[in-house]
Every structure is written in structure tokens, then in C-alpha cells.
């Protein structure tokens, strides 16, 4: 009896196509039809550095998630005579459109983008007349799901409204309904703070006060820099009305991480620091998350980041559509992903799927602190006439998106 060694397994799996006798799902012929996809990472001119060096982005951020998804798709594809290929491309904002056009010219119709909202809109408009779908893996802007929505853009990263609602539900279940909102001074911070204001109104929290922490610029990291900013925090948070929790809206990462243990009042911090809403966390083990973590750790030799998950779930959506439709045809795959039948297991306890009114992936959102997942929203206490997942973010009756 031949026992394949572990190293030989990848090759062994591919060999299955040829070895497999005709069966229910055996391919009609020996040739696997490829579904090509790409990840387009648009590197900002001045990358936003995290406050903690532990959060520095790895070089393969997002790409590693794409490799795992492609591997997952290929394993399943071997049983169906389908193959999946992946291009990993890194580009600048100026070159982004040209790079995308090169990819689509080479026959790639599914592109996962890691870009900001403005760049994404340029990319979307550049291929609006082609059979191309973009998956937005990194831009949380609500306008991309609202007034600036595009029919050719799917979103696997939740919107700011979804993130804010996920945290709000948990805080309300805890009866921590008096929030002290501290927001950064950049546009993205204001947008995130607006999402928390919307969430407070939606779920009945009381924002006792909002304060803006002005970014005065300067280097991210100096020998004494963090000491200086941290030292400002107690005074900055002084004399707030009585509150249960400080909610930080600091998407630009200027001050949020400095807040825990430096607030004037002894209160927990949530939002951009402390308890954070996220699509993925390396400590997430439930719902077979452990298997996903160990497959990823083995492949990338580092813990899985939310960006990797957002890219993974985009490419797995394509794989799942190809499996279910037994097709690699663009229109079939797109229609299936947007149809009522589509559901994908994503290690979050319930199936994820796309909202037809704005192409947003509906999914549970993890609430985590440094080393542990604390809870997962939607909370059981919040019900919805269609899916509890739609209690997060902008629901169909309120959407301003029209394709």
C-alpha cells in the first residue's frame, strides 16, 4: 500500500483529478477550467504606521489570506475539475488604474482590492463597462455602500456602521449605555465617530460628551514620543460627565492605543483601543476557527490578520460560487454570489452572504482585546425579521444605494 508522505500531499491531491474514476461529481474531462483572480494592494504614499510596533503590517498582508483561499479553492476544485489561480500585485495610487487594466486585459475578472475609498471608486469606474467584479477588503467607508455605491464592487470588510453597531450591541447588553466619545481630528475619525453616534441613537445609548483629540503631527515613534502623548491622556479625559465606557474613534491611529490605563476616570476603553470590533482575531477558536488559524499559521508563519480574512472570504466566495454552479462563467458566478442561495461557511458560526441592496457581506463581527475574543455580535438579544446579521449596519429600508 502506498502511503503518501505529508510533503507529497499537495501533488497527490492534484493527481486525484486524473486518478478519479467517473462519479457523481467527477469532471467531464481531464482539463481543469481555471478561474483567475488577483489581489491588488494599493500602497499609500505615506503608509499609516501603527502606534505599537507589534501591529506593524507584515509584507504579505492580505496576500497570505489570498494564498490560503486559493489553496482551499483548489482542493475543492480538484473534485470538480476546476482550478483557481492567483496574481498578487502591489501598486501605487497613481498606477492603480493602469495596473488594474493590465490585470483585466489578461483575462482576470475577479480582483480583490486593498485600497482607500477614493482609489477604489477610480478603479471601479475604470472597469464599469467590463465583466469585472472588485472585492473591497479594506475600505470601511459607509458612502461606498450608500451614495457612492457601485454595482461592480462587493465589500468583504464591514462598513464603519457595522463595526460600530457590533460594539454598541455588546455595550447595551452589558448595560454600559453612557458613553464618553473621543474622536480623532482626521476625516476618517469623524466618519467613525459619526458611526458611533448613529449606533448610539439606534440602540439607545447616551453619548454624554464628545471630544476631539487634535493631531498635531510629528513622528510616530520617537524615544520619548509615546510618553509625551500618553502623559496628555489623563488631562485630556478629565472632567467628563459620568460615563460607563470611553469609546475611541481613532481610525488614523493617533492616540487610541494610549488611552487604556491613562483615562482620568477608571473606565474601560472600547472602539479603536481596548475592546475592538474586528472581522478576525488570531485568538478566535470557536466554530472551527482553530482549523483556519492552524492552516494559516502553517502557510504564512505568522498569525492571521483581519485583512487576510477579508481577502480570504472574497476569494472563497468565488470558489463557493464555482463549486455550487459547477461553472466558471463570470455571469453565473456573479449572479450566484448575489442570489438567495449563496451561503459560505466562514468560521463564525453562521453562514455569511451578500446583501443585495449594497453588495455588502453580512457577517458576525468579533469583539476582541489584546489576546482574547470577548464576544461576537450580533448579540442574541437583537432580533431581525430577516437575519440577525442585518441588525448590524445599514439595513435595506434605510439604504441610500441604488445601482
Amino acid at each position, binding site marked *: 500500500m502506498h502511503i*503518501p508522505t505529508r510533503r507529497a*500531499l499537495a501533488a497527490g491531491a492534484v493527481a486525484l483529478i486524473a486518478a*478519479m474514476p467517473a*462519479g457523481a*461529481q467527477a469532471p467531464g474531462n481531464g482539463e481543469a477550467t481555471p478561474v483567475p483572480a488577483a489581489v491588488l494592494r494599493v500602497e499609500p504614499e505615506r503608509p499609516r504606521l501603527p502606534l505599537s510596533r507589534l501591529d506593524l503590517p507584515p509584507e504579505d498582508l492580505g496576500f497570505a489570506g489570498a494564498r490560503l483561499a486559493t489553496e*482551499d479553492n483548489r482542493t*475543492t476544485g480538484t*473534485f470538480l475539475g476546476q482550478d483557481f489561480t492567483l496574481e498578487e500585485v502591489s501598486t501605487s495610487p497613481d498606477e492603480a488604474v493602469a495596473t488594474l487594466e493590465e490585470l483585466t486585459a489578461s483575462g482576470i475578472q475577479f480582483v480583490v482590492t486593498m485600497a482607500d475609498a477614493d482609489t477604489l471608486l477610480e478603479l471601479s469606474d475604470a472597469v464599469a463597462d467590463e465583466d469585472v467584479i472588485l472585492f473591497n477588503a479594506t475600505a470601511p467607508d459607509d458612502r461606498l455602500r450608500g451614495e457612492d455605491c457601485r454595482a461592480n464592487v462587493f465589500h468583504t470588510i464591514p462598513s464603519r456602521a457595522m463595526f460600530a453597531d457590533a460594539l454598541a450591541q455588546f455595550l447595551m447588553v452589558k448595560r454600559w449605555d453612557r458613553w464618553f466619545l473621543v474622536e480623532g481630528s482626521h476625516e476618517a475619525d469623524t466618519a467613525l465617530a459619526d458611526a458611533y453616534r448613529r449606533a448610539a441613537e439606534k440602540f439607545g445609548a447616551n453619548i454624554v460628551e464628545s471630544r476631539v483629540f487634535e493631531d498635531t503631527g510629528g513622528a510616530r515613534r520617537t524615544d520619548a514620543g509615546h510618553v509625551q502623548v500618553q502623559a496628555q491622556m489623563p488631562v485630556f479625559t478629565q472632567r467628563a460627565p459620568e460615563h460607563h465606557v470611553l469609546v475611541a474613534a481613532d481610525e488614523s491611529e493617533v492616540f487610541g492605543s494610549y488611552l487604556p490605563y491613562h483615562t482620568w476616570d477608571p473606565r474601560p476603553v472600547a472602539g479603536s483601543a481596548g475592546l475592538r470590533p474586528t472581522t478576525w482575531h488570531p485568538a478566535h477558536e470557536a466554530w472551527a476557527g482553530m*482549523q483556519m488559524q492552524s492552516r494559516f499559521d502553517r502557510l504564512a508563519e505568522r498569525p492571521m490578520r483581519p485583512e487576510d480574512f477579508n481577502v480570504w472570504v472574497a476569494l472563497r466566495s468565488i470558489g463557493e460560487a464555482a463549486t455550487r454552479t459547477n461553472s466558471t462563467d463570470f455571469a453565473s458566478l456573479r449572479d450566484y454570489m448575489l442570489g438567495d442561495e449563496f451561503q459560505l*461557511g466562514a468560521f463564525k458560526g453562521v453562514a455569511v452572504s451578500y446583501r443585495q441592496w449594497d453588495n455588502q457581506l453580512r457577517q458576525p463581527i468579533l469583539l476582541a482585546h489584546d489576546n482574547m475574543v470577548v464576544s461576537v455580535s450580533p448579540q442574541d438579544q437583537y432580533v431581525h425579521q430577516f437575519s440577525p446579521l442585518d441588525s448590524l449596519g445599514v439595513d435595506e429600508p434605510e439604504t441610500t444605494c441604488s445601482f
Partner: protein
Amino acid sequence: MQLLKNIPRERNVMNRLLATTAAALAASAVAAVAQTVYVSNERGNSITIIDHESGEVVEEVPVGQRPRGINLSSDGKTLYILASDDNRVEVMDTETRQVTHHLPSGPDPELGILSPDDKILYVANEDDNLVTAIDVENRSIIAEIPVGIEPEGMGITSDGKTVVNTSETTNMAHFIDTETYEIYANILVDQRPRFAEFTADDSLLYVSAEIGGTVKVIDPSVPEVLHTITFEIPGVPQEAIQPVGVRVTEDGSKVYVALGPSNRVALVNGETWEVEEYFLVGQRVWQLAFTPDEKFLYTTNGISNDVSVIDVENNEVVRSIPVGEQPWGVQIGDH
């Protein structure tokens, strides 16, 4: 070992509270052979042994790390325990209740199934996309079969010629020829298939899908899907209905499906495939096992740390018994 022995004693106090029911059950049961229930406790790293007649926990035996699937030999004398985090199968002599030796299993064994002659144990290696065939006498691996991603559910025909494995991320049932150890057919099922159960006459195969919320009824001779069983429980969100363990009575007439966090077990008619009843059991119900006389069905309730007992004839939940931490697998023998 010594420390753990105190645990059952405490539980016995709780069990005494249920003594009335237990006495009634004992009286109704034919006092012939003792039926013994084995429950693996995924987090407790132990096997809880229950005497079915009295409903008492006899002993909680410490075993390897993260025991999930367990399989009992047909004579009831040997229990195979898949210790997932120790990457091995532990073999327990059920008379002495001691683990006597280990079998190599490949990484992260989750669920297994014994060949009808008890000679080969097939296990799903969840972390490695493999099904491993283990010769339990020679204590050696005789084949590794590459399957889809996250293999879990394992079923076998009564002649032992076909093993069916389900893979949770690939979402297929793979049909494996046990002579060639090759996959000869694949059937797509719904999201996250967890369990595969043949009827005793091999005419049907039931495959549960946890995230899909369905059970597929498959004609294994073709193979093709004949029907999709769906579930609806008033007042329970659809997302909470997550089918896992499936057991079919010998005559094929009754199909029981554990429905995970909905805390229900469904009774499905084996001919019409209509759901006839939902039983409220403990929290997050995983796996099921009949007593050998098929009069009772045990359910492992992963979150409430207990097992529920369903009276098959009278269609009611008659008892719950506290076990170890996070019960997962269950097997019952005449011994």
C-alpha cells in the same frame, strides 16, 4: 486520577435528585444485560462512564487531550478515543477502564468509524485533509487518503466496502473504496457537513450540514441526493438550527438529528422525511447514540455539560445526567 475520582461522587448527589425518575426507568427496563454509556468530554480531557439503568455516573476516567470522537468495538470491550490534541487514538479496555495503549492516527483525529469486523479504524484528520486507515491489531497506519478540507463525518457500509467522509470546508461527501483506498465519487452537500450515517441496509446515507442547516438524503448506490431535510422551530432563529449528529433506527423508520445551539433534537420520519417532533435537550447538542436495544437515545450537550436521554418509544426526554466538561462523543455498549 485520585483527584478526579471525587468528581463523580459530587455528581452522585445531583443524581440522587433524579432518583425518582431513575427508579421508574430501572423498573421498566428489562434487567438483562447492563448497558454502559461512554461520553468523551472535549474540554475535560476525560471519559464519563454512565450506567444506563441507574442513570448514575460510574466513573470519570482521565484520558488524552481534547477527546472528541469515540468508537466502541461490537463486543463492547474496547473503546477507541480520538485524542485530537495529542494526535493519537487511545485504546481503553472497558472492563478495567484503563487506557492500555495508543494507536498512531495522523494529526488531529476528530471522528472515526470502525469496520464491521472491528479490524480497521478509519479516522478523519481534521487539520490535514486526510482520512487515515488504522489496523487496530497491528497498531499501524495502513493508508492515508487525501480528501477535502477539514474532514469530519465518517460513515461505513455494512459490508465495509465503502467509507464516506465529509469535509467541512469543501462541503462534499467523498466515497472511498476500501479496497483501493481511492475516492470513487463526490457529492456536494450543504455548508459544513458534520456527520454521515448509513441506514442498516445501506440503502440510504444521511449527511448533516451544520451551517447549511440541512440533512441531505443520499442514494449511495448512484450516488445522488434524493431529498433535503430542512428544519423550522417556532421562536428559534434559523441560524441557531445547526444539524450535527445523526442516528437512524435499525429499521430505518426513525431518523434523529442533533440541532446544535437550537438545543433541540429532531425526529424525522425515515420514509416521508418529514420532521415529526422536536425534543428540547441540553445546550449545543452535538452527538447521539442509541442504547443497543434502541429504547433510548443519548445526546451530548456541549455547553450545559450534561447528556439528555430520550425515550424512543414514548417520544419524550426522560432524564439529564451531568457529565464532564464539554461532552462531545457518545457510545453505548452491552457490557
